[in-house]
């Protein structure tokens, strides 16, 4: 094979990089996903392209469910739609027994369209309009109230239907994590939550059947869940004692971490992210301490990121490279923050799609957008790579394909590698018609001549 010429470079030795977890590159590229060649995928479906592994996804959700159920039998996972509401992904998770957790009219309708019965939908979020609340109430969905005005709205609906509505309360509490997400739900410690309960009891229009607390995302502390579970069950005990309310469920939200690499965390995920077993054990033991064999409320989790992140890959290709004024090597990729918004918070691990040789050097990765902010990694050590080389970002299963944007570029194909290593397209690449389909150009503006 013909050797490619690469300009010689000087690399400055930096002390900071030398530690025992040195994440330098060896010369092994990542050439396939679940036995399917990256080269073949790019050839067939273009670049960039999102790839999901059904095997990985099923394995992860099963291991989560198994881990928690081994400690507490009455655990149910709900799939947090916002994390990834691709129909195929949701359907896989529903087939594994996950309910749907939605936070908007759109997500609610999508879940129902996919065939999720209303009573298997958990309806969260700060913006639930009356129209969709009415539908949710009629469907018997699990509505978790976020703020006072929502109580008004629901009581109105109950009065109109002349029937009590089962509701849950979203609660925020101090579990030792910072920042505390106090903008959602009612605060526990300052008595706001209990005041709301009094109000519900007094008005007799809503039936309190559960409490919900989602503390944040990418939580690295098992202790926080223990505190949260403890406080919620204590709250449940108070309700039982003082108001004779038996809560049917406790919803501990999501937030378990994936193997992604949070910025500012020194250790790589294998060392800094507690395994699911640890969360399960900590939470499970607390649940048992605070419940008894006669009262075992259903415990819901709405894990998003941890369930789907690992099963998602983004294959991009190098479009070109240049050397910046400060001497740093820069690569321009065909995927940027339009497809991965999260680089602000995460250093998403990247792998090279071919075997390679040569010394690694600090590089910066830019996306295709003609915008200064389109930086995916501002610091990554890469060997010299030529245009056309595929790079693989992983894990990107969470949030990317929902929180993405059609900005400047089309959104690419998304494919699924099945458990038999076959490929199915689960969202085809956008076309011009897709993008402008909803636009309406008034007749009078169409007649311009240039």
């Amino acid at each position, binding site marked *: 094979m013909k050797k490619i010429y690469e300009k010689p470079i000087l690399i400055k030795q930096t002390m900071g990089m030398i530690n025992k977890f040195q994440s330098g590159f060896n010369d092994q590229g990542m050439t396939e996903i679940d036995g399917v060649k990256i080269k073949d995928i790019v050839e067939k479906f273009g670049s960039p392209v999102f790839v999901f592994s059904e095997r990985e996804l*099923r*394995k992860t959700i*099963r*291991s989560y469910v*198994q881990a928690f*159920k*081994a*400690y*507490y*039998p*009455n655990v149910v996972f709900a799939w947090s739609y916002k994390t990834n509401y691709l129909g195929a992904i949701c359907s896989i998770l529903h087939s594994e027994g996950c309910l749907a957790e939605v936070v908007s009219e759109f997500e609610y309708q999508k879940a129902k369209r996919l065939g999720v*019965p209303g*009573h*298997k939908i958990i309806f969260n979020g700060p913006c639930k309009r009356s129209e969709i609340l009415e539908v949710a109430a009629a469907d*018997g969905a699990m509505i978790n109230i976020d703020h006072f005005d929502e109580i008004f709205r629901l009581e109105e609906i109950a009065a109109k239907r002349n029937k009590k509505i089962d509701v849950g309360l979203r609660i925020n509490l101090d579990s030792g994590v910072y920042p505390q997400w106090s903008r959602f739900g009612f605060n526990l410690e300052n008595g706001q939550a209990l005041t709301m309960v009094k109000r519900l009891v007094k008005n007799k229009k809503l039936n309190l*059947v559960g409490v919900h607390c989602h503390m944040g995302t990418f939580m690295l502390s098992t202790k926080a869940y223990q505190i949260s579970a403890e406080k919620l069950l204590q709250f449940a005990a108070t309700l039982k004692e003082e108001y004779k309310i*038996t*809560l*049917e*469920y406790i919803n501990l939200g999501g937030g378990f971490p994936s193997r992604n690499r949070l910025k500012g965390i020194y250790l790589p995920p294998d060392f800094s992210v507690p395994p699911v077993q640890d969360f399960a054990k900590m939470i*499970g033991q607390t649940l*048992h301490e605070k419940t*008894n*064999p006669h*009262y*075992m*409320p*259903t415990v819901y989790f709405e894990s998003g990121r941890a369930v789907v992140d690992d099963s998602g890959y983004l294959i991009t290709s190098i479009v070109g490279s240049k050397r910046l004024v400060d001497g740093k090597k820069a690569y321009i990729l065909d995927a940027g923050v339009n497809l991965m918004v999260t680089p602000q918070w995460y250093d998403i691990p990247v792998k090279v799609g071919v075997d390679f040789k040569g010394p690694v050097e600090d590089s910066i990765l830019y996306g295709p957008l003609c915008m200064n902010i389109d930086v995916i990694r501002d610091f990554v050590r890469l060997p010299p790579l030529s245009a056309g080389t595929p790079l693989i970002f992983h894990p990107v299963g969470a949030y990317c394909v929902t929180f993405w944007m059609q900005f400047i570029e089309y959104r690419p194909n998304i494919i699924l590698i099945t458990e038999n290593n076959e490929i199915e397209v689960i969202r085809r690449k956008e076309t011009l018609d897709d993008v402008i389909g909803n636009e309406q150009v008034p007749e009078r503006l169409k007649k311009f001549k240039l």
Partner: protein
Amino acid sequence: MNNIKKVLYIYSEIFFTDRFVLGLVIAGITFLDFKTGFFGVLTLVSAYLFHSFVFDRFGIIEPHYFYNPLLVGLSIGAHYPLTLPILFLALLAGILTIILTIVLGHALRQIFGLSALSLPFVIVSLTVYMILPIFSKQMTLYSFQPENYISFHLPLGLGGYFQSLAGIFFSTDPWAGACIALALLYHSRIILLLSLIGYYSGFFYYEFMDSRYLTLVSNPNLFNLVLTAVAAGGVYLVPSAQTYLVTVIISLLTYLVLAGCESFLGLFNLPVLTLPFNLVLLCLIYYLRLIPSKLKIYTFHNTPEENLDFFLNFATRFRTDLPSFSLPFSGSWFVSQAFDDDITHKGLWKYGVDFVMVNDQNEQWVGNPKLLDSYLAYAKPVFAPAAGTIVLVVNDIADNAIGSVNRENNWGNSVIIYVIAGYYIKISHLKKGSITSKVGAVVERGEIIAACGNSGYSPCPHIHIQAMSGLEDNSPTLEFRFEQAVASGGRFYHKWNPQKGQRVAALVPTTKKKKIFELLLKDSFDYLVSVKKNGVQLVEKRERIEVEMDPSGAVYMRNGKSRLYFDLVNNFFRFYRYAGPKNNILRYLFLAMPSYPVSDERIWWKDQLPIGIGFKVWWSGLILFLTSFYRNFARNESRLSVLDNYNFESSGSAYLLRWLIDSFECSVKIHREKFIDSIRIL
């Protein structure tokens, strides 16, 4: 009307049941000889008036109190002329009998747990006979001497059979007996058969084995054998081929006692009445009380057919004969060794089960298979499978490294729970130091008691569980079942017989479903019943179902006079007995939903309906008669599967041997707040 029915029930009580038609026939027969019938009513009335007067409460007739006074009246009427002194005597005798019935009944119940049967009748009648000896020649029925008894000849001793049936009611008329036989045929084929067994066993003994008599005259006292056979085989034992055989033997024993009584009472020229029957039956009931027989009946329901149906249905559905308890873990586990297995579950220890935890690739570990910590089962909590007392704790044996075993302490760390039902549960190979309870502690079902470990003869972490008759290592293990288990393929079992290679998890109940199925007394539900045929509306009416409790504490749903008994134990809602006509909505409820595990899981399960419920055809009585000879003669299976939290389907199939006779499909919608919303049956 209701009270007339009750009065007729008194007559049918003599055959151990409350039945209108049978009572009518018997009452009619007592009036064949007007005097006999008249005296019967007379003592009944005197007993009733006295009792109600003292009780200060009128209008309540308990049939089982009054058949003794009735019998006394009949016996006086049959033997004495209608004169004022005798009339007076009969009135007093009736009162004496009701007092004796209540006193003797209470005493026998308190001391021996028995009932008085017709002993009060025997005692009072004998008293009367001792006061006024029987003179009339023709009435020597009870002081039996073959030479002055007119025997009626029909082929095969049938005449004697009819006469002994009639003799129960102080008649010698074989045609009266034939009427009773017909009434029995209508009421219960099994009772008819038993009466024949009783009579012909005695007939055989009397004709061929009893050296005292060499005559072809039949012995009317054989009715004692008829009564004993009917009671033993139809009331106290479950009808079956085995029972019929036992009944033959008991009838022969009754003959023995009868002969003894005849000889003894004959000395005083007194009749034996029903004394032999009372003696043998009381003895038999007591005997049955003392032995754990599978043929025993605990509560009697009207006919042996109903008894059989209830018994078979209950036995196959609920396996109450075996110890049963919950799975000792949470989540889904895998059976690596079941009962009577090839590795270590043999001989005395054959009823043990081993569980390991596996991932979706069927591997027991994640990561390095050489490390104990990689094993999914390791350190997972172990739950008390039943409520009980901790009677043994071993907690300090080190956990083995993977692949090695401890041969000195085979069982490793173990805990034994004594269960009040009378057996022991042992769980072994636990993690060192994980057992949280001490000997003597009382645990609840579902409490965490230890953690899965790898101690003792255990190469990799697993839970071993067994039931035992004692707590020593060499106590025999007992066959048992796990309750409320969801096995591979989502099949739910109320009582699960563990099978190697299956995955299993305990059913997970939900608080919501518990609220929906926890029914309280006085709860009532209104339904609209609509029957359509070929799209044409045939019936449309409102029906109400109410929840009530009977004196024994059993709860049932009532609609009109129909009752459907149910309970909710350990998160399993079940219907177990229906009493009422075939076209009642409660029967359809039973058909559509014999049971329901109060959970939101997507499970399916099988259940069995009583034969009397499932078979549409009127001949379910005949089917039950045949089933009494061969238990698998008829089967009424139902298969239920959950569609979602509030909907499930069920389908029923009725089989005779292996032929499908009848089938139906139902869909059931559960109400969001209480019980059932609607049922559709096709």
